[in-house]
């Protein structure tokens, strides 16, 4: 018997169509196209970095305020633990696949897979904007999951890269130098995200009265401007992928699908809402291109950044933004039921 709650095929296609023609995706496409055509269009670096800070501050703060309305629940704690586990496990899967299907050496395979265990804040922001456009709500603490998922993958990636080192097995050297720890825990984006989350949690509605006009209303518009810049950057990176070979490039497409499946399964097992499961899938599917590259450059300099930044930013990010988000949402609707 057909499940009455399944969304019609038409509504799934309509969701994908809405996403393709949303200003966010169109501005991203504009940037990508301008970059491919070698236009001199540029977003000044200061504005771009400022917008990135704004997006993280707004996401963190809004998540904190939302959470201040709820008390801590069992499902929330289980979600936090699952998020950390997913972030730890995905690099191992990615590493295995890369080593089996490509000729990449250990450091490169480990560095790339670490990026896929971590998350992309902008992909997450675009997914929340997409859900808002669809009128779908989600559990506010998912934002806390994102902050937690930034770093465990770095630990996994480094363990995969170094587990054969004799000095490490004998306890002769440390997995993390002071420098790496600073990149991981004191990275600007981790501080602003967690800091604004805590401020939102502490100040609640009183804080939202003050910041609401800044972090709520302009959010999606500013995200569009940032995505224009991301389009330019992604096209720059994309041109580097021409020398990669089919197997490595296809990793950039199928790895997010594997991640999303794990995320959706976790959402189902945890009993999250459709919106929450969609975001869980987006988190597990997305790849970091800010925090992890910086950490890998310090901790694993033998790995070539042209590989990992190009895959994360030039292939997986556009894929998730344009096709992934509506796809994961459609599957969540069928799989979880609305």
């Amino acid at each position, binding site marked *: 018997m057909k499940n009455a709650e399944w969304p019609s095929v038409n509504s799934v296609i309509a969701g994908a169509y809405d996403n393709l023609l949303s200003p966010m995706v169109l501005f991203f496409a504009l940037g990508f196209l301008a970059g491919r055509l070698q236009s001199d269009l540029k*977003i000044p*670096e200061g504005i*771009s*970095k400022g917008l*990135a800070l704004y997006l993280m501050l707004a996401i963190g703060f809004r998540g904190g305020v939302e959470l201040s309305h709820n008390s801590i629940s069992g499902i929330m704690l289980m979600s936090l633990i699952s998020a950390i586990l997913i972030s730890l496990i995905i690099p191992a899967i990615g590493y295995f696949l890369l080593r089996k299907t490509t000729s990449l050496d250990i450091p490169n395979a480990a560095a790339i897979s670490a990026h896929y265990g971590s998350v992309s804040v902008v992909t997450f922001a675009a997914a929340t904007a997409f859900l808002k456009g669809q009128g779908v709500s989600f559990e506010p603490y998912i934002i806390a999951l994102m902050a937690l998922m930034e770093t465990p993958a770095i630990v996994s990636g480094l363990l995969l890269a170094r587990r054969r080192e004799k000095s490490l097995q004998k306890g002769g050297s440390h997995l993390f130098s002071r*420098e790496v720890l600073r990149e991981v825990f004191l990275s600007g984006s981790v501080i602003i995200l967690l800091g604004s989350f805590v401020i939102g949690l502490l100040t609640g509605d009183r804080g939202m009265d003050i910041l609401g006009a800044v972090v709520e209303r302009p959010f999606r518009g500013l995200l569009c401007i940032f995505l224009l*810049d*991301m389009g330019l*950057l992604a096209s*720059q990176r994309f041109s*580097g992928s021409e020398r990669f070979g089919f197997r490595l490039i296809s990793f950039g497409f199928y790895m997010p699908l594997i991640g999303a499946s794990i995320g959706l399964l976790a959402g189902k097992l945890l009993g999250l809402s459709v919106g929450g499961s969609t975001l869980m899938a987006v988190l597990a599917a997305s790849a970091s*291109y*800010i925090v992890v*590259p*910086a950490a890998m*450059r*310090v901790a694993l*300099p*033998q790995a070539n*950044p*042209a590989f990992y*930044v190009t895959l994360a*930013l030039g292939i997986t990010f556009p894929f998730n933004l344009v096709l992934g988000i509506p796809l994961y949402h459609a599957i969540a609707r069928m799989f979880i039921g609305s």
Partner: protein
Amino acid sequence: MQMYPKKKIEIVVEAVRVQRILEMIESSGGKGFTVIPQVSGKGNRGVRNEAHVNDVFRNVHIIVIAAEDVAKRIVQNAQPLLKDYAGIVYVSDVQVVRDQHF
């Protein structure tokens, strides 16, 4: 005017390594340095110019003027720090007016 011969060491290095290089310059006896935080160019690691989003492809230009013995130490100590990183080190002769500053 009296001029004094010195060495000018220039180090072009990727952003992530700058802090370590600057610490090394001071511990090698360098009394100061100039940092140009963002330069772009092309070398054996391809085009390096991207300064947005992450710093992985950003290059930094460091200039040090020092006496010859200090310059030698800096060049020597720079080598292990640049293993696996984008970096260029070169030295040239310069003349300065205020001898005691370098």
